[in-house]
């Protein structure tokens, strides 16, 4: 870990440091976890002291929060929002539903594993995770960024075909704009 950090050039180091300390989050309130976000950001837990603040649009955001189960219908929107975000971008997934489907594991319209559709940096376990857990998750992400390991967007682009194939399995009528990356 230390080695990796030291192997960065100074410019990279500064960049990663600033990325770490300035996380604009795009909270996609897909499920019940959305209610944890306000608690995390406001006075009680105050995520802003870590440089975390809300962003209104995917263009400005660094982190995409998937807060709970994802219906197939919602997945489409999540993919679009994710693709509209600019590199470097990170994804934090909340709760069991995004890990393994949670209580909706056998539902006909809820995906089970988020990772198969978009790359995820940090999973936060729980149903739902409490704000402490959320902040812990953010810290984990920050560590990952500082190490220079969080290259979510690159992973997505490199494995685009695989992700697309998975996405197509769920979203049968693919009407999304294709991006020229």
């Amino acid at each position: 870990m230390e080695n990796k950090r030291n192997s960065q050039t100074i410019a990279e180091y500064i960049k990663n440091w600033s990325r770490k300390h300035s996380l604009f989050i795009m909270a996609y309130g897909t499920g019940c976890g959305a209610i944890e976000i306000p608690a995390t950001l406001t006075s009680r837990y105050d995520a802003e002291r870590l440089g975390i603040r809300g962003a209104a649009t995917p263009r400005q955001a660094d982190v995409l929060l998937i807060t709970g189960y994802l219906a197939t219908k919602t997945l489409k929107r999540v993919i679009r929002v994710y693709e509209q975000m600019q590199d470097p971008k990170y994804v934090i997934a909340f709760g069991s539903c995004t890990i393994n489907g949670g209580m909706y594991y056998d539902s006909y319209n809820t995906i089970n594993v988020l990772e198969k559709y978009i790359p995820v940096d940090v999973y936060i376990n729980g149903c739902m995770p409490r704000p402490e857990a959320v902040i812990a998750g953010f810290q984990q992400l920050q560590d990952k960024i500082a190490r220079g390991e969080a290259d979510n967007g690159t992973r997505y682009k490199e494995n685009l075909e695989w992700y697309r194939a998975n996405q197509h399995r769920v979203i049968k009528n693919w009407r999304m704009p294709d991006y020229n990356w």
Partner: protein
Amino acid sequence: MLEKEQKLLEILKSAFQVEGKVIRNRRVEIWDHKEMVPAILLMVKTQLGYKHLNHITCIDWLEEGKFQLVYTVFSHTDKLTLFVKTKIDRDPAIMPNIDDIWDQANTYERELREMYGIEFPGLVGDQEFILEDWDEMPPMRRDFKTDVYAEKTFFAQPGREDAQDVRETITKRSGEEIPEFAKKYSRD
């Protein structure tokens, strides 16, 4: 007691020769053939003041091969809720359309069409209502195997096998005893 309810039941019985009963205070239910349902609903709406259609709901009696449709209507003057129930064949499932009596019935009927595959002749509106790009059997039918579908379509996370008792697994993993009070929730 229950005079209003009895009175309503009698009116309906005399008008349509329906079966029915008073469930309890302010709840009345009647059964009839599906062809009669629109007539009954129209009559209770226009003559008895049951102006509010609460809901149309469906129960899948797979074993009988029937769908049971329940029309819930409410009267703001009598404060009575009337359940109009009917059973229709599962296959083909066809039910007279009542969205000319209540406009909002359109929404419920579209939902039923999508989720149960019940046809309402003359129903206006897109075939697709809540689901997007659904090409399987209507998902709320009981013979639709949702776990099979989920397994086929979505990726299962390794380590999560279906239908296992979570508590038991946890207990086995950690070596704890299951408390007495919790045993009744166990699967076996």
